[in-house]
């Protein structure tokens, strides 16, 4: 299996969130298929960048995809194609 790049991992995490709108951090970690330390890094980065946000529902932490996160998923193919086209 090929090692995923950073953008692919971000895409995969956001895709999981898109498919599972009320997912909690632990199942998200499990489904993302990366180590917990790497997941923490990605998770924090996604929050800082505004792709995801945490919401509290009945004292429980849920993760939600933001509009920017949806936009990333929409644009992912263009970004990947662009990087490939110009060897970036």
């Amino acid at each position, binding site marked *: 299996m090929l090692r995923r790049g950073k953008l692919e991992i971000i895409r995969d995490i956001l895709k999981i969130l898109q498919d599972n709108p009320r997912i909690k951090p632990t199942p998200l970690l499990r489904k993302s298929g990366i180590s917990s330390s790497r997941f923490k890094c990605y998770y924090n980065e996604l929050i800082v960048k505004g792709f995801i946000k945490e919401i509290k529902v009945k004292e429980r932490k849920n993760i939600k995809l933001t509009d920017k996160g949806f*936009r*990333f998923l929409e*644009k992912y193919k*263009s*970004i990947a194609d*662009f990087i490939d*086209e*110009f*060897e970036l």
Partner: protein
Amino acid sequence: MLFEGGQGLGKILKAGLPAEFIYSFAIIVCSLMIYFGTKEIYQLSSHKGIKYFRQAFLFFAFAYFFRSFLKVIIIYFNFHGIIQICPRFIIGSVLLFLFLYFGSMAVFYLLYSVLWKKLSHYTLYLFHLIAFMIAIFSVLLDNPLVYLGVNIILFVFILISVYFLYKESKGKGKKKLNLCTIYFLLLFFWLLNIIDILIPSILQSFQIFIYIISLGIFLLILYKVLKKVGS
């Protein structure tokens, strides 16, 4: 007779002030469209390759902006090259410095956008230093041949880099060859643009051809960018 005919053709192919303006304006617009057209994908991805690629075209836009001013001075005062401008006008020296600095950095950024994974971040500082040295020495030494020599060395260095890049990604098919060819042509015609500023008499007869092909290369890159970005 034939020589006279050649001179006549030369006059036709020599660009005047309106052609210079149109050419510079078109290249600046293309470069800025590439820069702003890739803004969203950069903001979403924060990809370093995209960042340096965008910066290359922003710097090309600046370089062509300052180039157009130099061209106006050369044409307006009927000079035979930059060597006649610098001693007379401080503004000429400043414009030449900015043109050479931004132009060299544009080329370096384009190269770095492809090689950033293999090079250290400090290489970028080195590139800035080299571009600064090229620009400052060219202005201080006041000899276009020195700058021309430096640029030819730079061009050969970039050519070798592009060749190795192509060799490394050879297995990936025809697309890589196309990209290497486009970058090679872009850099080659950038060199011709520099010669056109420093020693205009050399390329006077081919000016329009150089402008058309240079613009064609920028338009081709813009087309490829817009096709991929989809905006």
